[in-house]
């Protein structure tokens, strides 16, 4: 049986990253956009852990970094959701197209 190597994980994480970017640009629902950002952050975590395991096994920087990324992502999501709730109160919608009073 083939063991998964560094390149397999890097391909998955790159794919996750670009799926996240694609979702962020195409989705119009704010919660889905937030989910896309979470995808991006998780691809980063995967990257860090893979590099740590396969390339720099005697170092701990990558593991610590991914722990902090998880914590910060939670904080960011909390603030973002609070802002989205407030936006829903004033606009009665969480579609970005409806929040377009200011342009150009």
């Amino acid at each position: 049986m083939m063991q998964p190597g560094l390149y397999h994980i890097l391909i998955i994480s790159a794919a996750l990253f670009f799926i996240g970017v694609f979702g962020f640009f195409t989705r119009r629902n704010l919660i889905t956009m937030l989910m896309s950002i979470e995808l991006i952050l998780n691809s980063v975590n995967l990257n860090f852990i893979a590099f740590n395991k396969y390339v720099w096994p005697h170092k701990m920087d990558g593991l610590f970094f991914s722990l902090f990324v998880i914590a910060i992502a939670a904080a960011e999501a909390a603030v973002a959701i609070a802002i989205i709730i407030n936006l829903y109160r004033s606009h009665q919608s969480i579609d970005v197209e409806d929040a377009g009073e200011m342009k150009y």
Partner: protein
Amino acid sequence: MTTDLLILMKQELVVTFIIFILLFIKIGKGIKNETLLPLIQLLLLTNFVIGFFFNKEGILFGGMYNTTALMVFQKNILSLATYLISLLCVGWLKKSDHLAEFFLLMLSALLGMFFMISAGNLLMFYLSLELATIPIAAIANFDLEKRRSSEAAMKMILSSAFSSGILLFGISLLYGATGTIDFVALPALLNGSPLQLFAFIFLFAAFAFKLSIVPFHLYTADVYEGAPIAVTSFLSVVSKGAIAFIFITALYKVFRPMEEVWYNMLVILSVATMLVGNLFALRQQQFKRFLAFSSIAQVGFILVGISSGAPEGLSAVVYFVLIYVFSNLAAFGVAELISNQTGKETIDDYKGMYATNPFLSWVLAIALFSLAGIPPTAGFFGKLFLITAGASKASYWFIIIAALNMMISLFYYLKVVRAVFMDKSEQPIEKINIPASAKLALLLCGAGIVLLGILSWVYDYIVSLVK
């Protein structure tokens, strides 16, 4: 070790202390805004003054945190700007129901910027960058009932979250390529391999997002327009300044081996930033939005200075940010007073303002002259040093484009001055009564704009710090 910790991290500790005081005030019995606001102003003034004493250079936590005399000076600029904002925006702040929370969040962001300037490690840099941006998104939403305020906050949090995602992806690739996240160890390991270049482009894009350099500037104007003016001025002065400082540290110290790469990137982005900022500023009617695009153009000029890659570039940028604090805060302060008391925010409303409000008109005129870079004001010297530093690489067409952009910017700044002084209007803005502290802050800004250009020892002092 303990005393070292107390003295080296003095500025961060003072800000943390103020945050805790505010937190306890908030938890305890509420204090009226009339008594709380002077207290906060006093605390912020102490924070600014303490920055000048007991300064020492050193490294803490195995290189994660380092401080030098130049960093202390940069942090003092930011504390000064925060203090001025608390003086200028008294009218709006007094009406706010959540004064303590506002300063809690604003000072958390300031704390993040302090740590960011002192960061010696990519992990530290990332954490402090998040501490510096998330609270700003929260205070951008501070006019809870206004539609535009929540729209601005939404744009701010989404774009900053996206840009930090890009930053992190870049950092992770850099870690994979070099095996370290330490600023001191990184330069020796950079060899320009494709993976490292790819990671560097991601990092650069994230910086460009935070500094609102042109292809990544789209959220800036909306956030500036929608957020309350106190937040807008904080965002455009303090946040931009802090990120410009760490950007220089990153380019000059960490990515020095890639200088050829980032020089070309900076030139292209700087030209685009100046052009787009200026051309969009030409067509704005809303004063805050106008200042937003003008600040994008100013970032373009900062990039001209950064592109030099020499110590002159660093000292020119620090000097320019110091002047920019005074000029931009004066302009925002006038806008705040007018919009708070009359609700008027467009340039057409400012017509004939000189007849009713001569003091505000003069302050606005001096501030705009300084932003445009007209000789007696300090703004001229700021731009002069930036462009001289940029010229050190001898790519003169680049400098010519920067000079041409200064002329375009002159046109739209003077358009506002003309509206204020020369145009007649049937309904000019009525007499505005200026609170004492706002008047003090406006006078300080005016004095700063005029004196910084004349007192040459300020620039000499910055040059001596850089060396």
